[in-house]
């Protein structure tokens, strides 16, 4: 099973390609079956990957059997295994949700979802900076297609902005790559990290410029202020399971900051060590504040959830800027929690909107929900989790983030911002919940009842939250180990070297 490392990339790739063949084009059920089978295989391989990485070894996969750092290398460690599993679980739930009919509301939903996963997993697994760019593009182009799924003006408009900004971002990424290659002469992140300590002073400055560009690019992906512009509209307009799936997209940006900046500008990077932390810190906190304000301001539920995603991205990056292992571990845990819960909220918003007639998910009085009781319970659970109230994972995550701040200044800044934002989110969510569920204006009309698979998808996503608390100890322990492993850079030149 030496090839297991690459499964998370190849399984969706092959599934996606097969889904385009004529026999599958003709039949909805076959498409769904194949899509599901692909996800199942993916889930198995993600679990296997996690199990494999739990042994503590960093698995390299030398593509084309070329020695590192010349060929492209995949790196499977605990961090990437966690994220791969996260996105796979998320995808399974989104896929499940989409079976209620959303997947057929436009062409190519199933293959695009698979390709998106391929891109995301590629970004998580690759140890090559240019390959990372390629996978970024894979995930972006799939996300463009998915964002437009279902059609409509709002989606088109949001997609236009999303695509434009990301194209700019891609250009910047390439500039950064070129500069780094020119200065370091390599594309393998670990190899670059080895080379970075022996730069001439003039080159250091050029690398600094490149690092700035990279920060911009990852910041754009992670929706860091002021590069967050695309996020609220895109997420709020995407169709439900797509929006839910997108919950992991900002985490890709966070992951890249963690991985790339962690290795390139780690402790042995001489004067470049810790590059960008100050910026991330300020921008992360600002993002949190803006996001919280956005959460309060949001006039419909999906937009509110979109700002919640923004808030979590800000929290993650600000915490990451603290720069120590504990902070990274907390970030990992928080990523798991926030991704799944935000996804559940997106799906819930859709279910709620579907039963409220013309007012949809707008936060105004509307007709009573057909299934107020189950939806209400799920909403309360999700809200508690996202606000960071016990007994769900949010509070553990929040406490851990807070504990990550250990010096006076970071405590003052992070805690006050984090807690203030929590309060705003609480206010907003209680307002939203009481409006949606309690402020009933018109008479009940028989609306479309939510499908069982939809409930199942939301339930599964939300189930993760209590599980993360109940089995918090092993999960957190794993996060700590992963963070520690991330700090420790493998010598890639020793792998299959000439």
């Amino acid at each position: 099973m030496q090839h297991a490392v690459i499964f998370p990339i190849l399984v969706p790739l092959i599934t996606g390609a097969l889904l385009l063949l004529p026999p599958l084009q003709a039949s909805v059920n076959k498409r769904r079956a194949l899509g599901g089978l692909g996800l199942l295989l993916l889930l198995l391989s993600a679990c296997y990957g996690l199990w494999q990485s739990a042994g503590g070894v960093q698995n390299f996969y030398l593509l084309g059997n070329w020695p590192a750092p010349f060929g492209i290398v995949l790196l499977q460690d605990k961090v990437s295994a966690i994220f791969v599993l996260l996105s796979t679980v998320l995808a399974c739930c989104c896929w499940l949700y989409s079976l209620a009919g959303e997947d057929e509301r436009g062409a190519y939903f199933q293959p695009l979802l698979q390709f998106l996963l391929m891109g995301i997993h590629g970004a998580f697994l690759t140890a090559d900076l240019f390959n990372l760019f390629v996978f970024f593009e894979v995930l972006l182009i799939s996300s463009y297609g998915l964002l437009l799924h279902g059609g409509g003006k709002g989606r088109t408009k949001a997609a236009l902005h999303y695509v434009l900004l990301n194209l700019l971002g891609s250009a910047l990424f390439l500039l950064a790559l070129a500069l780094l290659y020119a200065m370091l002469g390599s594309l393998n992140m670990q190899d670059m990290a080895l080379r970075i300590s022996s730069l001439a002073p003039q080159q250091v400055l050029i690398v600094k410029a490149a690092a700035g560009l990279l920060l911009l690019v990852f910041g754009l992906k992670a929706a860091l202020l002021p590069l967050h512009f695309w996020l609220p509209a895109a997420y709020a307009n995407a169709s439900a399971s797509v929006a839910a799936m997108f919950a992991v997209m900002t985490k890709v940006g966070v992951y890249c900051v963690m991985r790339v900046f962690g290795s390139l500008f780690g402790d042995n990077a001489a004067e470049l060590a810790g590059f960008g932390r100050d910026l991330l810190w300020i921008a992360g906190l600002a993002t949190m504040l803006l996001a919280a304000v956005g959460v309060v301001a949001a006039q419909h539920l999906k937009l509110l959830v979109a700002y919640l995603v923004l808030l979590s991205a800000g929290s993650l990056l600000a915490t990451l800027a603290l720069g120590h292992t504990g902070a990274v571990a907390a970030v990992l845990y928080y990523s798991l929690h926030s991704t799944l819960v935000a996804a559940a909220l997106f799906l819930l918003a859709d279910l709620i909107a579907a039963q409220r007639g013309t007012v949809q998910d707008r936060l105004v009085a509307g007709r009573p929900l057909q299934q107020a009781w189950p939806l209400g319970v799920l909403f309360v659970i999700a809200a508690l989790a996202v606000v960071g109230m016990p007994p769900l994972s949010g509070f553990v995550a929040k406490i851990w983030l807070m504990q990550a701040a250990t010096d006076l200044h970071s405590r003052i800044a992070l805690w006050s911002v984090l807690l203030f934002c929590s309060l705003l989110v609480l206010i907003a969510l209680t307002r939203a919940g009481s409006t949606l569920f309690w402020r009933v204006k018109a008479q009940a009309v028989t609306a479309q009842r939510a499908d069982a698979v939809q409930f199942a998808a939301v339930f599964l996503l939300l189930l993760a939250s209590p599980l993360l608390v109940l089995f918090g100890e092993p999960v957190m322990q794993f996060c700590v180990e992963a963070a520690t492993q991330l700090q420790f850079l493998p010598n890639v030149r020793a792998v299959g070297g000439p």
Partner: protein
Amino acid sequence: MSTLLWIVVLPLLASIFVTAARQWQRSYLALAVAAFPALALLLLLPSAAAIFSGEVLRYQVQWLPLIGLNFSLHLDGLSFLFSLLILCIGLLVILYARYYLSAQDSMARFYAFLMLFMFAMLGVVLSGNLLQMWFFWELTSISSFLLISFWSQQGDARKGARMALTVTAAGGLALLAGIVLLGQITGSYELSVVLTQTEQLQQHAAYPVVLALVLLGAFTKSAQFPFHFWLPNAMAAPTPVSAYLHSATMVKAGIFLLARLYPLLSGTELWFLAVTLAGLTTLLVGAYFALFQHDLKGLLAYSTISHLGLITLLLGLDTDLAAVAAIFHVINHAIFKASLFMAAGIIDHETGSRDMRKINGLWKYMPVTATLAMVASASMAGVPLLNGFLSKEMFFTQTLHQGVLGSLSWLIPLLATVAAIFAVAYSARFIHDVFFNGEPIGLSKTPHEPPRYMRVPMEILVALCVLVGVFPQWFIGDLLSQAAVAVLGSAAPEYSLALWHGLNIPLLMSVLALAGGIVLYINRKHLFVFQAGFAEQPAIYRFENVLQRFVQRCRSLTAAIDNGRYQRFAGLMLVLVLWLCGAPLLELASLQGNRPALPLDMLVLAGAAILCIAAIATVLTIRQRLLSLVMISVVGLMVSLAFVRFSAPDLALTQLSVEVVTVVLLMLALYFLPHKSVKQSSPGHLVRDLALATGVGVVIGSLAFAMLTQQTDTISDYFLQNAKTGGGGTNVVNVILVDFRGFDTLGEITVLGIAALGIFKMLTGIPRFMSGADGEGRRWALDSHPLLLAVVSQALLPLALLVSVYIFFRGHNMPGGGFVAGLITAVAMILQYVAQGVDWVKPRLKVEYSTLISLGILCATITGLASWLFERPFLTSWFDYFDLPLVGTVELASAMAFDLGVYLTVVGSTLLILANLGKVTTRYRPVHKEQS
């Protein structure tokens, strides 16, 4: 000590149980629910012996040690007392609620929430870990939110619940910060450890912060001034909820917290001052406003605020006995206030109103209830022989023995007396205005006694008022002393619980209060008139207004920042580029590096000039779109030539072929877009953009120069050395593409394929929008498929295919490859579309483009997978040379199969995009009259 665990968990089980058993008959349901806390009580009581002998019972399970959160239970005198209150009063409330709730109310839901709350409350008081305590603390907020908003159809209930949650959760967040800080200072969150670190904490610089944060938590929860406003509005809750939460439990959680951390936090000037002042103010404010409430429950709510202030004040006084008095009053207040709330509930239930201006003279209709309520009120007023009197006496005594405010300390007993006068007055009002004072006005039903068992809880509580009042030592002596030990962290001070301590100042104060209260009540009219002068909006509206204004602010802020303008954010991004790249450049001593420069030649200069001029011309002609398209084609051509000049033939080929497809694409797009655009940028806007553009250009150009003049040792030599021997090709660029970095290429063709799919998606169902004439208003020409073009394009197709094959096969060794070959094929096919139209091509083409994409990707992937058969990683290449008779040496390489995948994907994607776009444009073509 897993009994501790059961005590906590049983109510949770009850909550789960009741959700499952929601179809049960109401009485059975109530009984079944009551069984759980009853059992918990049975489990708790046996530990009394141990507790009274000074033991502390613990139960600990490792939970999340990484953040210091363990499941840790801690039963000492204080928690025993509170648990007892919670369980006993909880049981009474369950019984009471059985009769209180109407048939429409979901009893199961009510009990589920109530039990959840009980679980949370028990968790708070039994917590042995601060983080865990916070966990339950927040759970009380949540469950109380659910309980207050039980009648969610009423706006007041929703708003009241939200307000309560907002205030208490805000406090909870502060408390969390306090606890985490405390944990970081003391190194643990375990009570048993933390409570021993008093000195370390109080000498720490952050002690004031910790204190402030913890007090914020406690004060919001216990409705201390200025956070008291949520409590009266929480009266929208069903009365059993008030009887439980707002007398004995939830609001006491803050008090409990103060008591719990008393050994750790108290003893400092800061503590005394902050707690005393908050308590004193709350005591006065609550007592004063209670008098003016017309709502029965409103009166009780303000009275509760006042009593909570009293207890807080006691905890702030610098004597040990004050703490004992505080605990004592916690018990007494719980007892009499719970019974009073129940009375209010009964009255509400039987009269349909809580407005004291309407309900009068109930003595006639419900004498038993009235008697009970009057006794409880008397206890609240501090009438001797009742429990309220005792603790109030102790309170008065302690106000006389403190020195918290220094030279102003005499104010405290004075103000305490004033508050007591008001307390007597509002208690008197409760009795007189409800049970006497003439006949009821405009009630919807004729009042009568409640069902027998609805009164039982009240009877029990009132009996306790009397019993404790008369035999205090016997009833609660041990309880109190052990609780006091827990609070003080040391042996309890000497005190005596007795009815009669002789003639002393406290007694005088009591008498004064009673007399003054009666006088005040009798003359209340004047005071009411005076107070009416300050008529204010109710807190709930003020709070909602503030919130509404805040939301509006947030909206305008969000709208101002996230204004939906692409230009702003693109601009910002570029400003960041300028800053992040420009700043390091400014530090650079010289851009020039160590690499020897190539000599300049005229041709390159001419080419560069053409390129730059064309680029600028593109910008200048941007409003005549066709023209700018022509201009940018020149740029593309020159870039390709530059690639040729600087030794990159592969790039030139690719750039050229991509260029053509892009132009075709843009032409198709122009059909939909307006051919000309109106000017939209103001001059200022333009100048700013120009400056930004120049800046970014200069920065990127400088970086390019700095980069170009730097010599670096790269990994490229490896590729040059191994391309032939390891990759089997002499065109190193191509070998990199299909072999060394074949994985990139696989991703790249996937991108292309996905783009085509996405485009197909966008094109299906695109609304019609196109122009019937060109930019100058000319109608379109008639000749849709010029003859000459048609014939030539047909002739070119086989030639182009041949060239594709040629380019494809030579790619591995010479410039070329699958990508360029694919584009040539695609362009040749596009030419067929251009020359003869979709209707001509479509029937002649048997293959689906999406299938081509799929086959292409699969072909490349399977080629990569094939290496698994040889136990090599994905994409490991294989090649060999074969000597064939007649033919000579032939090279076969897996890279060719890979490249075939590239070829197929490129053809499929390009054609899927362009052919479908073409179809769309034609579908919406307005039909000319002449043509039909």
